């Protein structure tokens, strides 16, 4: 028998610190698989965010640095301008990308920086204990919205991908999900397209990935997959948002 599925070379043989059913592990692996398949491991520089994925540098087997909370696209800009032929990507959560780092995200996109953003949207702050994120759904309970997110008090879930899509510098933006094998396959294709867009020097691209956080949704991993299908997709529909 032949081995038809195994761990990619760009992913270290390390146990992750993520909770059961957390989607970060899947996305880490997809990034590693795409880098291996494109033959870019020795030309890649990744930037880990502040948040649950800050320890991504322990899991990837290529050059990785970390950025201050939200400054990830600015750090990527600095690296990419110095090394324009390398693959430079940021890996960011919703708080990092769409709250504290909104300005850095918007302006990196607007400058059309040749970088890729892997944006993991799980609608909650994980590392700090499940507080409301900019992408938390209306009525969703979190540590800081104990009675549920309220439109009047907390604002609506931020649709940052749609916001970025109106910028000329952003050439490819897609929203995918890792809640199912089909979603995982689509996510992998989207990451590959984003990396290829960058290597072709076409401009800024981002893949927003809906990802489960059972722990801070207060659900079992199984229930969290249902929550994604029944609730999240209503606010965050999947598909190519820019670059159809």
């Amino acid at each position, binding site marked *: 028998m032949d081995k038809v599925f195994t761990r990619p070379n760009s992913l270290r043989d390390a146990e992750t610190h993520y909770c059961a059913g957390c989607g970060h592990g899947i996305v880490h692996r997809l990034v590693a698989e795409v880098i291996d398949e494109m033959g870019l491991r020795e030309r890649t520089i990744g930037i880990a965010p502040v948040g649950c994925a800050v320890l991504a540098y322990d899991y990837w087997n290529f*050059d990785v*640095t*970390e*950025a*201050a909370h939200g*400054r990830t696209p600015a*750090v990527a*800009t*600095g690296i990419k301008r110095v090394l324009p032929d390398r693959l430079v990507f940021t890996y960011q959560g919703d708080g990092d990308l769409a709250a504290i780092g909104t300005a850095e995200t918007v302006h990196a996109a607007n*400058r059309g920086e040749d970088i890729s953003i892997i944006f993991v949207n799980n609608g909650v702050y994980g590392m700090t204990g499940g507080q409301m994120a900019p992408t938390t759904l209306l009525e969703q309970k979190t540590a800081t919205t104990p009675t549920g997110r309220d439109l009047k008090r907390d604002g609506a879930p931020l649709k940052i991908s749609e916001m970025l899509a109106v910028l000329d510098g952003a050439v490819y933006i897609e929203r995918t999900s890792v809640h199912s094998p089909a979603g995982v396959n689509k996510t992998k294709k989207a990451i590959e397209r984003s990396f290829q867009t960058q290597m072709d020097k076409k401009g800024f691209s981002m893949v927003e990935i809906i990802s489960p956080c059972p722990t801070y949704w207060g659900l079992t991993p199984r229930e969290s997959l249902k929550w994604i299908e029944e609730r999240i997709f209503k606010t965050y529909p999947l598909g190519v948002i820019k670059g159809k």
Partner: protein
Amino acid sequence: MKRDRILMCGNEACGEGAVIAGCRFYAGYPITPQNELTAYMAKRMLELGGTFIQAESELAAINMVFGASVAGARAMTSSSSPGISLKQEGISYIAGCGLPAVIVNVMRGGPGLGNIAPSQADYFQATRGGGHGDYRTIVLAPASVQEVVELTRDAFGLADEYRMPVMVLSDGMLGQMMEPVDLVAANKAEVGKRSVEKPWALTGCKDREPNMIRSLLLKSGALEDWNNELQARYKTIEEKEVRYEALHEDESDLIIIGYGTCGRIAKSCVERARDEGLSVGMIRPITLWPFPKDIVRKAAEKAKAILVVEMSSGQMIEDVQLAIGERCKIEFYGRPGGAVPEEDVIFEKIRTLVSG
């Protein structure tokens, strides 16, 4: 015809000092009174094929510099006081990651938005780290446009050698004023000799194990070890990198201590006092951290009094106090809020102190 000496303002001279050091990456955000520097770098980076980015904020600018440094480039950002406060987050991360970078602060009056007049009120912020955590930045304080060129140039070598942020602490006066600058002389100095290999940089892991640059150290004892390593580095710097200018410091009854713009005023006062036969000397710290405490202490053994002059309500005076303890009397003359001390007023104070 290439002239040896050209007229430049301090802010432009700062940019040229960076260019001489091989800096080809600059990111900044407009703020008065340092705008000539940003405009100069925009022009020079274009001419030299370097990178200039007008960032969306000071936060973004310092983090772009962080990124460029991660990739191994000599990189600089500049701002003025309120903008430097914003950059402190990034400076702390640069220190925490052990990265070289050069930050220029063309100081203006504070606190808050303050005004746009020259000031020295950011001394505490510059010399005590400035951001969160237990770290230092080397702080270089020029007193002439020529020195702005040379110290900015040297800042890059120091940053690379010790892998840490280095700050050039200028002020609105030095930034705006024009003086002849000898760029040929500035170019001749062996800037390259301090340039070091950067095997730690992230360039892609071809023919080596992957590199990692980070300041998050969660394993038990790891952060304490790293802090101890930083402190050892700082100790070496305190031993090797102190710079100052001194005049009659070992033979005078009164020693004036001032840096930057106040150092210039102090120098004029010393010359005038000596002409009148008054026993006055001076020490002008060029590195504010590491502070030239040994020479200050030695001068205090002989002197009857020390006069500290600052464009603030008194910040460097604390370093003078730490250096000399009870050895001699310390007098202070300073003007806060963007006011510049006048030479005549200081001179009268000197006369009173020496004759009294």
